[in-house]
């Protein structure tokens, strides 16, 4: 469904990711783990076209998206829930969610999905009229995920959805991720919380200082001595 081939990414003269090659198949949860600064966010930002690759190709459902603008990629069915929540602080929770459905015009379907998101995150329904900036960190994370769902993506990119959350809320979020996947959504999950990520995902890639150093079945990788030492402590 999503394929990166030899993608090199740089900020100015500094290369952040070297020739990354990775693949996400329809129906999978794939996780990309690695220490802080390894280049995980950079890869996701390249997929949603916020940064241009130095070299390499990115295809989505067989289509080369390397030359598209970010908003076009969303229209192809790829949603990106960015790191650090990035809710629109100055707009209401409901407006944030409705803007998540910006590319759609099927009013009835949007209302239905709004109900679906409120069902997933009842806290958001209670706070629908509140400005998003006044939500707690966990609530903002729920809003960011809910907002990404509002465009009915076929592929969902999640960048550290558990970052800064209380363990119990993080667990809830991983539970929701697994559920979404069971309903047919393909997910690329970036995490520092390798434990939870490996348990939720089918396959995993391990990124170290911009290089993919290991990949494979999540359960098998979780058993790998080197990965255990570095990431599962």
């Amino acid at each position, binding site marked *: 469904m999503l394929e990166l081939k030899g993608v090199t990414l740089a900020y100015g003269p500094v290369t952040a990711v070297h020739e990354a090659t990775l693949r996400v198949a329809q129906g999978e949860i794939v996780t990309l783990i690695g220490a802080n600064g390894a280049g995980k966010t950079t890869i996701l930002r390249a997929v*949603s076209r*916020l940064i241009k690759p130095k070299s390499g190709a990115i295809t989505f459902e067989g289509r080369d998206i390397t030359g598209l*603008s*970010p*908003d076009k990629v*969303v*229209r192809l069915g790829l*949603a*990106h829930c*960015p790191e650090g929540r*990035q809710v*629109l*602080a*100055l*707009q209401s929770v409901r*407006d944030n969610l*409705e*803007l*998540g459905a*910006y*590319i759609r015009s099927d009013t009835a379907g949007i209302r239905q999905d709004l109900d679906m998101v409120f069902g997933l995150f009842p806290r958001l329904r209670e706070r629908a009229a509140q400005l998003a900036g006044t939500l707690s960190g966990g609530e903002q994370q729920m809003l960011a995920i809910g*907002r990404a769902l509002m*465009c009915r993506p076929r592929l969902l990119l999640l960048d550290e959805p558990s970052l800064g959350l209380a363990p119990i809320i993080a667990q809830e979020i991983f539970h929701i991720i697994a559920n979404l996947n069971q309903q047919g959504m393909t997910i690329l999950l970036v995490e520092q919380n390798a434990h939870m990520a490996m348990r939720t995902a089918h396959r995993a890639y391990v990124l170290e200082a911009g290089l993919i150093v290991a990949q494979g079945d999540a359960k098998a990788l979780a058993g790998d001595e080197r990965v255990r030492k570095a990431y599962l402590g």
Partner: protein
Amino acid sequence: MSLAWFLQNLVNGLSIGSVYAVFALGYTLVFSVLGILNFAHGAVFTLGAYLTYVLAVGEFGLNGLLAGMTLPFKLPFALALLAGALLSGLAGVAVEHLAFRPLRKRGADALLALVSSLGVALILVNLIQYLFGAEIYSFPSDVLGTLPPAVILHVGEGLVAMRTIQVVLFGVSLLLLIGLAWFIQFTKQGKALRAVAENPDTASLLGISVDAFILGTFFISGLLGGLSGTLIGVSFGLSGPYFGVAYGLKALAVIVLGGLGSIPGAVLGGLVIGLAEAFLPPDMSSFKEAVPYALLFIVLLVRPQGLLGKNAEEKV
């Protein structure tokens, strides 16, 4: 200091102040989306006034490349105003393409766009001078058709004159301000525009085309500029290609007074400065041009962020 005196100044102040507000909003819109002031806005203001003049009067002046030429038609004022505003909107789009987009695409420092917009302003003003000449253009007194020039109200002992043009100024401005506020606050595209202003990356991840909204913002901004240029031109005449410069500076005072980047601030700032000018005692009228800046100075001493501005943490 009678009631009539007070009402007369109120009428004068609100009508001109509402135009200041519309003009200033053009700066504010671009600023809230890009975080930069567009210094070509004053030139678009001038251009709008000239274009509307030609469309309404049907002929050019006595100097410049187009001297003595006539159009095969004359539009009624309302239509000319609309057409002039739309053309100014297109001029705004051109300003974006020339002064802002190339730098943005290269990720250049925002300050550079300030300079390039100043460059485009100079080009525009010189182009106007080249085409229209440097003379004064005055709208003919019958430009508003058969409407009476003023309505006189009796208030107690005194008289209050409401000039028709003042009603037009206030009416058109009010309509625009309400329309724009409604658009930004309540419509889907308005919310998307606010998303672009708050965080362009996040907006683009929602499928919002940031480039299209920046272009749209320059169009609306140019439209507001051209329209306010025409309204002021009809009231006071077009004093030459540089007539937008003084008003441009005044509008900058308006947005800083109201709070940089704040839309309600631009409206309030415009009205406050318009009223302050109107209520200036007649024997001090030689200081009229200094009023906005004096007011600005005093307000900034007390509230550095302006009347309705947020504290400086957002955009600079």
